[in-house]
């Protein structure tokens, strides 16, 4: 298992905007560099990209949760 961590503090979102589909779901195959979420801080939005390839196992935080730098956002089964 590998963790995708947030590089910055802010609020985690799984979707690019209200009413839009999530960037990724549990069970999806994801690639290195793929956008898996957004962290918003003071109205600035930063895309979170995966640094591993594999299958998205689970989300460690919920939509709208506060994250700190180094917090795990997503757990990935490598392969």
């Amino acid at each position, binding site marked *: 298992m590998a963790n995708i961590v947030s590089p910055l*503090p*802010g*609020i985690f979102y799984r979707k690019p905007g209200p009413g839009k589909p999530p960037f990724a779901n549990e069970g999806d195959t994801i690639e290195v560099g793929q956008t898996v979420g957004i962290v*918003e*801080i*003071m*109205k*600035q939005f930063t895309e979170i990209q995966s640094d591993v390839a594999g299958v998205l196992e689970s989300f460690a935080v919920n939509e*709208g949760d*506060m994250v700190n730098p180094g917090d795990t956002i997503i757990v990935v089964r490598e392969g």
Partner: protein
Amino acid sequence: MKRLLIANRGEIAVRIARTAREMGIETLVVASEPDADSLAARSADHVVVVGPAPAPASYLNQDAIIAAALDNGCDAVHPGYGFLSENAEFARKVVEAGLTWVGPDAGAIEMMGNKSMARDSARKAGVPVLRGSDGPLDPEADALALARDIGYPLVVKASAGGGGRGIRFVHDEGELLATIEMARGEAASVFGDPTVYLERFVKHARHVEVQVLGDGKNFIHLGDRDCSMQRRSQKVIEEAPAPDLPDAVRQTIRESSVELARECGYSGAGTVEFLYDPANHEAAFIEMNTRIQVEHPVTEVVTGVDLVREQLLIASTGSMSVRQEDIEFNGHAIECRINAEDPHNNFFPSPGVISVLEWFEGDGVRIDAGVEAGSTVSPYYDSMLAKLIVHKDTREAAIEGALEALYGTRIEGVKTTIPVLKKLLDRLEFSAVKHHSKFIETVDNLMEPK
């Protein structure tokens, strides 16, 4: 007006509460959970927590805010700027609930919120506009022929955009049709309205604006401001009056802004924004903001008029207290926006706890702050902490005074934009008024020592 609900946070909530108190109006500020003990909350007579931290659940929660007003005996709502201040639906709901809305009516907000309708009414009122499609671009129209008349480069703008959002640049004819297509798609998904219009692009434009007041019967201006020092379309330094503006241009924008207010029977404070092309000495309409602006203090200190007081008078009595002939302009004012961002790290936001905060005190220095020592700067809201306003006899003295005040200000615990404000005020381009609204983006080594 006996008890006013302030539907905002930070420095503008503190600012509104101050004038309301001077007028003998009780205040109630709404707050999100983490803001329950903020400086704004403590500046008002009462505070009501309307929801959790995310703005959609609190400061944008229309029903919770109206319920807070009704449950607590408020008779009026001041929306400040941002959040719900230009939301016509909210203005309408406030009035339908039997409360007084401190601002222009929903119809005026709606018209000015639609950028192509606003441009059209401006044109009809005699406000200079940029060459463009004069209203929404008809999807059936010959866009290529229209664009040839306007000239390249040009911009495609979303009718529902504004504030620097929903704008696409077109260098030449080859890019036009694809860009229009893309802009329509983007506008539909971002703003829920695919309408776009075309406008000539001005290189190195300055941003000037006119403060207006109307009470439905009388319409006046309180002079102009220049807000050309911007970063990514967000204002950084503002001043009044606008420097280095030909008399004829100044007169045209002031008088035509009053005409625009008259045309829509405007009631409240508003700002008509212009793009100024210094190469051709031409000003052209951008948009009208139907609320109090962040930079209103520079106008207040050079005119001596309290704009929030006028807003509250217009809303409560139907009349403003000043006439055009009462308005006099004295000296020059500069406002610096102090944001919790790190200018040494690409303006990265810097939330945290303010451990030390010491403001500079001196003649002609005004601080409009939303924080104090011990305040927590939340990641949930925008990064502006305070505005430092300096009023002196001349522009040179105001620049000097602003520098002195910034050097005498200490904020610790979060990174702030004070270092970049010092650099900008010290630039020759700024003192010579050779800066423009993309100036900051064009300087590579702004933060390096000279």
